């Protein structure tokens, strides 16, 4: 549970200080946010499944974001940036949907 608390503290700090993102990183922000959402939903589902592990959550969060940004970067270098980001968004979107469905089953039993 601690990392979730830390995450909330980080969000509050971010809202309070509004740090600026380097311009070079800006193209990868949208996909990174989608990846972070995926990790968040995964973590929430793990909590409901009783499988939550803070280390796994943090590592999956960081690696998801990094790999998603890396794929987009690679795609940009190869000239297929938009296509690759579409692929990443589709895969992450499917995962988010299935995790959300599992969460829904847990919460509403339906």
């Amino acid at each position, binding site marked *: 549970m601690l*990392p979730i608390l830390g995450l909330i503290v980080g*969000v509050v700090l971010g809202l309070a200080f509004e740090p600026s993102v380097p311009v070079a990183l800006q193209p990868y*922000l949208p996909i990174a946010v989608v990846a972070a959402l995926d990790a968040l939903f995964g973590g929430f589902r793990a909590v409901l499944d009783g*499988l939550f592990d803070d*280390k*796994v959550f*943090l590592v999956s969060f960081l690696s998801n974001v990094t790999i998603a940004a890396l794929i987009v970067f690679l795609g940009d270098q190869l000239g297929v940036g938009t296509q690759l980001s579409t692929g990443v968004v589709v895969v992450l979107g499917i995962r988010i949907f299935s995790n959300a469905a*599992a969460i829904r089953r847990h919460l509403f039993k339906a």
Partner: protein
Amino acid sequence: MADKDDRTPARNSMTLLTEVMNHPLDQGYVEAKSRPHGHRKQRPTAIALRMIVAIFVGLCITAAVLELRSPRPAVTQARTLLGDEIIAKRDLVEALEDQNDYLRYEIEQASNRLLYGDEGQAIKPTSADTLAVGSESVSGPGIVITLNDGNVERDPDAARVQDTDLQLVINELWDAGAEAIAINGHRLGPRSAIRGAGGAVLVDLTAVVSPFEISAIGSTNTLQVALARSQTADHLSRLNATYGITFKVVGETSLTLASEPVANLQVAGVPVGESSVGSVPEEMPQGVR
């Protein structure tokens, strides 16, 4: 059995999709749970490290989200700025138009002094000239033709009154002996043009919209009869039948048409020496004829 054999290759080729669909949860969670329990004892340093990483991750994601959402206010700001500028410029244009009108009035006054005053008796335009040029407002009996757009919802482009329709009516009226014509109060002179630009009809670069009210001064009876007998009347009734464009002709005992500002001559002038009018220029370039 045959059924199973058929299905296997398909399932193999879909491994990625089934993986994504059926196991969206990271395998790591399950593995971490299945590890021996003693291994999960956490040292304080590890907890602190995880806390720091979590705070860092939260900070980064918040920064990313804020960054992604921030450009929108800038865009709307630019939009409102442009909107304000447009409104300000519109006021400026109106002021300039007023100034233009005033200057035109002054020019008219000055040229009237020159033409009719003590100084110059040389060029005295007849009333027929001013009538034809449209430089003076006129009044007299005539007819008013009103054209209305048809069913625009059903047929957005074709059901509008086109520039050619107006041209037909105007030409018919001139042909029938109209002495002065105006469209929606816009007097037509010798240099007037009725054109279509996109979906709009321009009369001398000014957009006019439906209902189009064409006022023509002339013998009411002659104009009405000529218009009714002409092919233009057929054309109009065809427009009515096809697109629902309505037209109405009303005779008026008294119409007043405003004057049309006359363009000043910038380049053209009267030839020097009256004898040269109609004569062949002395130096004729070779190969023209």
